[in-house]
């Protein structure tokens, strides 16, 4: 996979994961054009389209578009499964996920994605394992925050 974009029906970007090195300007241009292209598609059209030299796979879940750019030799149908799996993970994590969850907890959306895909490839095919990993990371985060917030540490500054 080259990149994945999540955006709303109004074209507002909610998540962008780039697996290829591009300048900020190029990323913005691609995002703008692709969002326009996908939003212009009618509801009954198929989920695949050719754009520049890439294959684009997109699917709409409620008010969010999930859009992936894959290479010529990649399998479009399995990419649809990748998108669906990601949505399921978000759903399990947030409990009946909606766009607002992803807006207000965008870092979490990234963390979940990073436990499912790595370098543009699928790293874990078990839903359970992905969610477990996130859970453990969240716990670890909570622990460290509690540690540093307890009174005994207020006077102590570490040099970073």
């Amino acid at each position, binding site marked *: 996979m080259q990149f994945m974009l999540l955006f709303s029906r109004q074209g507002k970007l909610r998540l962008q994961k780039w697996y290829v*090195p591009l300048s900020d300007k190029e990323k913005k241009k691609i995002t703008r054009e692709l969002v326009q292209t996908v939003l212009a598609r009618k509801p009954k059209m198929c989920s695949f389209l050719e754009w520049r030299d890439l294959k684009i796979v997109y699917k709409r879940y409620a008010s969010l578009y999930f859009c992936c750019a894959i290479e010529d030799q990649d*399998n*479009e*149908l399995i990419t649809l*499964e990748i998108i669906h799996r990601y949505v399921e993970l978000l759903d399990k994590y947030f409990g009946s996920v909606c766009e607002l969850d992803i807006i207000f907890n965008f870092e979490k959306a990234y963390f979940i994605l990073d436990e499912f895909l790595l370098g543009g490839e699928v*790293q874990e095919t078990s839903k359970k*394992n992905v969610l477990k990993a996130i859970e453990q990371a969240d716990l670890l985060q909570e622990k460290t925050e509690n540690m540093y917030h307890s009174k005994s540490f207020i006077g102590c500054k570490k040099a970073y």
Partner: protein
Amino acid sequence: MVAPSLKLQDLIEEIRAAKTQAQEREVIQKECAHIRASFRDGDPLHRHRQLAKLLYVHMLGYPAHFGQMECLKLIASPRFTDKRVGYLGAMLLLDERQDAHLLITNSIKNDLSQGIQPVQGLALCTLSTMGSAEMCQDLATEVEKLLLQPSPYVRKKAILTAVHIIRKVPELSNIFLPSCAQLLHERHHGVLLGTITLITELCERSPAALRHFQKVVPQLVQILRTLVTTGYSTEHSISGVSDPFLQVQILRLLRILGRNHEESSEAMNDLLAQVATNTDTSRNAGNAVLFETVLTIMDIHSAAGLRVLAVNILGRFLLNSDKNIRYVALMSLLRLVQSDHSAVQRHRPTVVDCLQETDASLSRRALELSLALVNSSNVRAMTRELQAFLESCPPDLRADCASGILLAAERFAPTKRWHMDTILHVLTTAGTYVRDDAVANLTQLIAGAQELHAYSVRRLYSALAEDISQQPLVQVAAWCIGEYGDLLLEGNCEETEPLQVEEEEVLALLEKVLQSHMSLPATRGYALTALMKLSTRLRGDNKRIRQVVSIYGSCLDVELQQRAVEYNALFRKYDHIRAAILEKMPLVERGGPQVGEEAKESKAAAKLSEAAPVPTEPQASKLLDLLDLLDGPSEDAQHPSPLDPSPGGALVQLLDLPCAPPRPAPIPNLKVFEREGVQLNLSFIRPPGTPALLLITVTVTNSSGGDVTHFICQAAVPKSFQLQLQAPSGNTVPARGGLPITQLFRILNPNKAPLRLKLRLTYNHFGQPVQEIFEVNNVPVETWQ
């Protein structure tokens, strides 16, 4: 002093509450100022919150480069919270184009070697997302160490990071190759999946690695077989299909290993057949696996039966109610239509049905595929379907559909009349969308088919009378009416409705075309010339024509003006040669698929001239070589099968040669026939560079007192020769040295056998029919040696 700043959630809410772009910008600018201040001298404990806000703002499109150094600091912090946000920031804000990116290399190295597992995970994730070539060089050994660590959580990430490293620095492949063998024994799906991906990457980049891994094909086959057969674990399954992600990845690797490798292909044949037949296809997951299987089958050396199975699966996909599945099926079939033509042909009806798709990307693919499936046996049925489609298809597909139909017609037309009808239909339905050479092609076709002249001119006249807006149609019709106006007015043509046309009507129609706003300048040129030609074809006086021509002498369009002035001159000063100049045109030669084949319906067709024996099944990739056919057994002169040119257009050198007046031939002319003042002369040319080719120009002259009419010359040559007759310049030689008839023969004589020619002449002279058959044996030796 740290200014009070918003929490992330509050900031997001405030931004969303902004009613205008300007308001939003204001909120964000204010907050960014806070963030900058906080970065400078704020509490390190809250740094991660500030960065998080900055990352949100960055996603909205605002600049965030001043956060780059903060990412570095957060990554270097021992706190997990800091690292989590810091690494996220690095992935979003830092990339290999920033100089700062190298600075995180050290932190990553530390985290990889000393961090707890979640931290190692973060580091690996970041490296595999934005790691530059330099970073990969520096960190490759650290990653390699993690490949064989006990924890699968870290191992699976390390493996995929290795994939990224290889993509960036292919030379580092050697570091990771050795571990693959051991990793293949993994049971953990994530690790196994990563391993397969790594091996795939290695094989794609290095032929040596490819050969190395071809040895593990049996092992891969076993892994996939186990996956498919031993029930399913709910943990990894989707809709009853065991870990489709892993299956697809294995199939892809098998494809790469089996390609061009007989042994590997054989090892996987059974398994592929098993997967192809047993995978549950009720949901997308199963179809995804099936699709990958089909791609693999088609790419390796699979048994013929397996290939047919694969194509049939694609055919079934075409009937699936899921649009996405139909799409991938159409794409794949399009790729296969050349190599597995007959297998794909079986699904032609389904493909044609797909023309009705509402989704433009599907109907476009269906159109491409349909055109690729047209062959000589289905051309009539397919053209009907495609014409129906042309009438209702969306505008952006019209041009492709029209040119596709015309091309198919050119290649596979069973008869010239059918060909003409097809082109006519396309021109009337989608005239504005056809390519420019359609006009030339149709005029060429009509001119070359003498038996169709009456039919053509009537059909075109009727079409023109109905509608003068479609320019290509108007141009062809105008030309035709000009050339064959006499046939339009006289007698009946059996193949069309009886049509009574008055001279005045014809002139009026052409004038209408001339004057219409819709007519392009080129069209008006055609119409004017046609009017002029009619001056010799029609019987009435030419007052009306002369009037029109003189009016256009002062037309603003320079081209029309020039023509009109010249035609005017023809009327006034050069009336005596007007007839000769406006004579019927000889066939214009071009390097296209037009060969002087005799159509089945042509009763005047020379039974003695041999049609070239041809294969009926087109081989799209083979260039048709006329010379090969000389050895062919079938020489049935009645066989109407059309010549099939390769898509490249140019046939044999034979057709590319101009038939323009032959250069003065060093070979002496030969008088072969004389009777009562009617003489037949042959002149010979052997064009340099084509020793097997001989061009003969037959000239018929008449020095007698009576006209020669209805003159037809037919010819036959020995079996080893190839003969092609071109249309004669006419069939009348007026008395007392009137304009002779000329006709060009083309003879291929690759064996350099002595040339013998048998001629049969039929004509009317002095009111009596004459028939002469004779052999020409005394041709100069230079014509065939």
